[in-house]
């Protein structure tokens, strides 16, 4: 006859400030991924990928899946018509995609440190999301500036701008990425 399991002892009580359960923090970026898919208005393939990515983010937050969402969203935008040329609706959709991708990256980083049973203080989430607000404000301003510029300059004038942008990106890569990463050595 096997022994009945002895009930576990009571859990430790940690007096935290206002907090949310860890599972909610892990589910949150996954939910944002689904919202991004909704904003994209994509078909079944988009939803399939979104559900798969959302599941990975929730179940394996340690994996850098959230970073890949940026690449996926960028690829999706590239594969479709220019959203900035589609009027206010397209710009709004682009803003939603930009914000969603950034939120997924940010929340995915926090979710990587939250176990299912953990507690996460609201102040931590507030402190994490505050830079998103600041950065996204700048990005939205940039979006408006780009829209205004394009309406003024016109498509033919974009050629030299493209060259400048490519040079700028290469310079950015060389400046920002640490030498160790490029050399393949230790981080």
């Amino acid at each position: 006859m096997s022994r009945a399991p002895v009930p576990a002892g009571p859990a430790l009580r940690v007096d935290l400030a206002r907090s949310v359960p860890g599972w909610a923090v892990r589910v949150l970026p996954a939910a944002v991924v689904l919202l991004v898919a909704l904003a994209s208005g994509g078909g079944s393939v988009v939803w399939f990928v979104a559900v798969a990515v959302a599941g990975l983010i929730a179940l394996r937050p340690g994996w850098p899946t959230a970073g890949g969402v940026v690449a996926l969203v960028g690829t999706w935008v590239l594969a479709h018509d220019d959203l900035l040329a589609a009027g206010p609706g397209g710009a709004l959709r682009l803003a939603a995609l930009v914000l969603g991708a950034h939120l997924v990256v940010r929340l995915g980083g926090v979710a990587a440190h939250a176990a299912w049973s953990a507690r996460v203080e609201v102040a931590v989430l507030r402190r994490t999301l505050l830079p998103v607000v600041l950065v996204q404000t700048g990005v939205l301003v940039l979006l408006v500036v780009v829209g205004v510029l394009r309406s003024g300059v016109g498509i033919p004038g974009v050629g030299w701008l493209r060259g400048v942008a490519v040079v700028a990106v290469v310079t950015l890569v060389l400046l920002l990425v640490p030498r160790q990463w490029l050399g393949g050595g230790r981080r």
Partner: protein
Amino acid sequence: MTDSWSGSRWGEERPPDGPPPGPSSRPPGGAGGRDDLPALGAGWLAGRHLVWSLAASLFVVGLGAVAGRPDVALVGVGPLVAAVWALTLRPRGEVWVDVEQAATASGGIGARLLLAAPPGTEAVRLRVARPGHGCVEALVDVPLTRTVEVVAPSVRTGPQDLVRVDGQGVGAGGHLTGPATRTTPPPVTVLPRPGTMPALPLPIRLRGLTGQHPSRRPGEGGDLRDVHPFQPGDSLRRVDWRVTARRSPRGEQLYARRTFALAEAHVTLVVDSRDDVGPDPGTWSGHAPVRPVDATSLDLARHAAATVARAYLAAGDRVGVEDLGVRLRTLRPGGGRNQLDRVIHQLAVLRPQGDPHPRVRPPQLPSGTLVYLFSTFLDAEAATLASLWRRSGHRVVVVDVLPALRRGGLPGRGRLALRIVEMERADRLTDLVTAGCEVVRWADDDAASRVQLLARQSHRRPGVGVGR
């Protein structure tokens, strides 16, 4: 946990002798001398999330630039700026965690976590663990310094470990992780909380010339004993002039009032610390831990002894402690508030130690001592000693501190073994009653009324209070 604590240095322990590296010794924010500062970002590692988000952002921005699609590039701008922000504003220094005992809450053990984090730390990842309670994880906000209270629900008393805390700093959206720190659980001694006793059984003989118990010996302070012809040595203030006028109208003989003396009781608390068993017999082998919400026999013994000690010391009596397990742990009888503190501390540090040799002779006790013996009586030694004390003229109150047992879940052989143990124990307790000892089972609800009954019996007992 799904992932490891990146950048952790779990193997590092604080030197046991040296003080913890607190904010006073090394400010976490790097406010000390320039040479003492760690290098910028030392110890804070960029996680895979940061690497991948930076790479993906650059890819998308580059893709947009090459394709001449600013809408594509805008998707990567936000995460790119955030990643650069995280890389350039790495916190400097490490998170410091320390644990100290807080005021013990009712029904639990309190601990206070002292946290200090360098500027730029977005959160501190905490893991608080304690044997029997599991572990709790939390991401807490630490604006440079913070205090977090932890309560471990427990009814256990005596020496035990507080809590073990692992801490790790998390920076910039969880993309940076600092070095992990681990505290060694500080040992604490949880004192038993004495209860109240409705009445006090008294020893067969009271001792001393002071106290609050009336004795049969003539002296000062007690009730009227008799009126006696005046003798040399009697105080003139004790002359009863009414009786003198009535019995000796001519004044040839004076009569003085004599009173009973007050006396004190000597009480010795004998605690059998060789056993510390819980209510679940499956844990008696020591392979399974006792749940922290289950009081063990030694917890009951500490509580019972502290209750008895407080009651007698409040009545002005003298109380000492004997340990049946370790012979060096003896507290000489004494009185007063300080003695109560000494008794409670002595009870708190009692715990089973090694395999003590059986006692051939019982501990020597002062004559006329009231003996309280706290034991589980799972073996015969304590019962034998109680019988010897009773035979030598002490009044012995036996307090059975075995918790109410949980028999459910025991296998068949275990139940049979428990039944044999219980029969032997019952025989021992019956023998003790036969030998003249008084038995109280402390785990029962009517323990207080049982003690009250013993107190009433002690006042009816012939010869009680007769001083020698």
